[in-house]
């Protein structure tokens, strides 16, 4: 039988003015289980706390009810007070008689009566409290970064800088991501490669960083501090240890007609290739889809020319297993496919390009060596039309995305400006819905495009692009001018919406990290915890969480790294003891709880139970990982048998409070 002590606080006159504290402590002293009840001017003061501790000893209290201010204010204070006096901190309940009573009621009789009822509810609850102990779990001091773009690289560098080991898994043969394909960056117009490639080299040379390029995450098990990840290292057919990256093979390979993915198919490469000169790791890879040797068994040229003997046509995918304490998702983005936007003739004319393709067409290392030429006839274009929001901000329907892709306004301004600067004889038109430039020096940048470089910005959408006689006839509406425009253009550039990489969805399932309807990862809190996923130990970096430009990505990458460092620096994690718990005798194993758990805290095992008459029965039962559960209680309601309950807020405790209040 519990022995409950009740301590009613006056809070000076904050409570005592509208609640008869003496009457409250008197009334509550008659409640079942209460062996001591008193009131005092300031319970949270040193003297008040000592009074509580003395009463705990004197009356051998097993539970404590404090009638005072909100538990949000002093619950922790009083828990510690009681813990110091030798009772479990979770044997304390607070009746909120200040914020939710004395401060909102003027009539003392009313306030007193309500305070008594709130006190009773707290007593009823504490009678059913059980001592709770926060468990701990060890932390593996190593992080995994999934995705080796600028987000992943920056996160890895920052984590490594703090002294922790970090692995990068990148599905392409090289790290670097989208930024490697970009020519210049806004609003400074500095060269993307010049700022990115040193970071790639840093990552490669950092002894704390291990790069698994041409690899993918295959399976994730475990929880915060204790993840076990299976990584698939795809076969390159080139021994990474032996290849020197000399590139001879890529020059001698007879298979020349492979679309060059790095240049978005605007030119070709060989079947054995290094994506670009500054690739990290600089190792050749055989494209199995095109390699004659792998397909027919006849060729072997690369093997013959490789002096290092690195070519291995029999290489297989390998699976490795690693342990991590934290995982950072940095899977990035891709421009959307434009199949559904036939009106812009993207699939009918090579001169209709996406903005990313334009980046390659303007890049010195690109297919045209940096000279802007029309893909169709390699001539200099004179009139260019940029179309904004292609697939962005599409309401409803199957076509496009509902969100703003955020980066297009700025990179289009950049493209327009660069073209006008390099080729003053061109006319550049930009069709837009809105121009959005919220960012440091962004609006100035856009104004320069309009004012200094004479780019024609026209509010309105392009209705149709018709390729005819080597020209592109652009029909568009000029909303401000109130007229229909027809422009005879040489090239049309589409600012295609960006979407999360396709690999993100299956990855989210593996990580039990939640995603929104657009497949962007959701944050633990949209405002206050923007770089953490709701699943403990999973962090978000870059455009996988939402469209972002490079500085934002780098900032978030650093933020994610600091959260990871904050986790890895701990030897043990203290768990919240108010977590869900499943009674295995009542569990049906139906998986309802698992489906509503936002944290992936629930797993299932088959367990053998003893049945009647010496029989045994194998049953599937749920198990809650207390290190992962955050204690929301969604599972408790999804569970029809009531096997799942929440410690600290159990069904019994809440119903006892209800009973006490309605009595």
């Amino acid at each position, binding site marked *: 039988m519990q022995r409950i002590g009740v301590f009613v606080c006056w809070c000076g006159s904050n409570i005592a003015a509208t609640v008869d504290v003496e009457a409250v402590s008197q009334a509550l002293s008659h409640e079942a289980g209460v062996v001591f009840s008193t009131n005092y001017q300031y319970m949270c003061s040193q003297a008040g706390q000592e009074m509580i501790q003395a009463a705990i000893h004197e009356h051998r209290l097993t539970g404590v009810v404090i009638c005072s201010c909100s538990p949000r204010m002093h619950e922790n204070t009083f828990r510690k007070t009681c813990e110091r006096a030798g009772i479990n901190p979770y044997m304390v309940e607070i009746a909120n008689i200040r914020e939710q009573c004395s401060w909102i009621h003027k009539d003392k009789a009313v306030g007193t009566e309500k305070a008594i009822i709130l006190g009773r509810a707290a007593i009823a609850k504490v009678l059913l409290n059980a001592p709770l102990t926060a468990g701990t779990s060890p932390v593996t001091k190593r992080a995994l970064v999934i995705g080796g773009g600028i987000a992943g690289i920056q996160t890895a560098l920052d984590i490594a800088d703090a002294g922790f080991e970090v692995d990068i898994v990148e599905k392409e043969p090289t790290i670097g991501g989208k930024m490697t394909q970009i020519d210049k960056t806004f609003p400074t117009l500095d060269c993307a490669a010049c700022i990115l490639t040193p970071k790639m080299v840093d990552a490669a040379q950092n002894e704390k960083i291990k790069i698994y390029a041409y690899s993918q995450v295959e399976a994730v098990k475990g929880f915060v501090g204790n993840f076990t990840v299976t990584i698939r290292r795809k076969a390159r057919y080139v021994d990474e240890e032996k290849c020197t990256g000399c590139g001879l093979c890529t020059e001698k390979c007879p298979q020349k007609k492979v679309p060059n993915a790095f240049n978005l198919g605007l030119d070709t490469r060989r079947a054995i290739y290094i994506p670009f000169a500054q690739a990290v790791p600089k190792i050749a890879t055989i494209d199995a889809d095109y390699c004659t040797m792998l397909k027919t068994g006849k060729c072997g040229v690369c093997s013959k020319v490789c002096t290092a003997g690195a070519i291995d046509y029999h290489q297989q995918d390998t699976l490795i297993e690693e342990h991590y304490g934290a995982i950072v998702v940095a899977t990035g983005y891709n421009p959307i496919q434009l199949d559904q936007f036939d009106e812009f003739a993207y699939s009918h004319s090579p001169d209709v390009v996406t903005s990313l393709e334009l980046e390659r067409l303007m890049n010195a290392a690109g297919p045209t060596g940096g000279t802007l030429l029309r893909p169709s006839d390699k001539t200099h274009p004179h009139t260019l039309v940029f179309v904004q929001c292609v697939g962005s901000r599409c309401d409803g329907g199957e076509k496009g995305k509902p969100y703003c892709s955020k980066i297009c306004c700025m990179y289009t301004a950049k493209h327009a400006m660069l073209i006008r600067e390099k080729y003053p004889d061109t006319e550049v038109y930009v069709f837009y819905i809105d121009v959005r430039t919220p960012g440091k020096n962004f609006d100035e940048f856009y104004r320069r495009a309009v004012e200094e470089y004479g780019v024609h910005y026209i509010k309105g959408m392009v209705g149709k692009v018709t390729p005819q006689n080597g020209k592109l006839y652009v029909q568009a509406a000029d909303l401000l001018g109130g007229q229909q425009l027809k422009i005879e253009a040489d090239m049309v550039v589409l600012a295609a919406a960006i979407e999360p990489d396709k690999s993100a969805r299956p990855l989210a399932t593996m990580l039990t990290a939640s995603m929104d309807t657009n497949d962007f990862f959701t944050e633990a809190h*949209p405002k206050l915890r923007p770089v953490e996923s709701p699943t403990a130990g999973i962090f978000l970096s870059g455009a996988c969480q939402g469209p972002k430009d490079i500085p934002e990505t780098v900032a978030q990458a650093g933020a994610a790294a600091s959260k990871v460092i904050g986790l890895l620096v701990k030897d043990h994690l203290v768990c919240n003891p108010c977590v869900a718990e499943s009674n295995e005798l009542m569990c049906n194993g139906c998986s309802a709880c698992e489906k509503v758990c936002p944290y992936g805290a629930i797993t299932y095992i088959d367990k053998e139970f003893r049945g009647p008459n010496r029989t045994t029965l194998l049953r599937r039962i749920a198990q809650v990982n207390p290190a992962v559960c955050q204690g929301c209680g*969604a599972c408790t309601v999804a569970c029809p048998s009531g096997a799942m309950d929440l410690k600290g807020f159990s069904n019994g405790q809440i119903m006892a409070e209800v009973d006490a209040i309605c009595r």
Partner: protein
Amino acid sequence: MQVNGQFQPTIVAFCCNWCSYAGADLSGTNRLQYPANVKIIRIPCSCRLNPMFILRAFQRGADGVILCGCHPGDCHYTSGNYFARRRMTLLFNMLEFLGIERERTRVEWVSAAEGAKFAATMNDFVATITRLGENKRLEDLRCKSK
């Protein structure tokens, strides 16, 4: 409950710890009045509210039950209030189907910053239930021997 011949409804308000309970605290901090008929029970999240608790409250003499949680999209646990919303939508429809007045149950999203909304909501809810009168349809006469 009748007090001096006047009907005084008993109202149970389940408030999520992160938004609505804090909103209720804020309405106290700002000294915004609402009737003492409302008694708050703190739960970690609106998704912790089991329909059994609501029925229990009515059985034990409550005349109205209200659930307050974070606004959709703002749940501390990201998805709790979305589940709660579906559960309560269906439960309230079922109660109405059984002839229980729909006014007796309500869901309101109140953020930690909405002290004024919390007080206004409670004032309105108490007024509604007072108009509606005593809960007779989900009562347990055994618990009415006051």
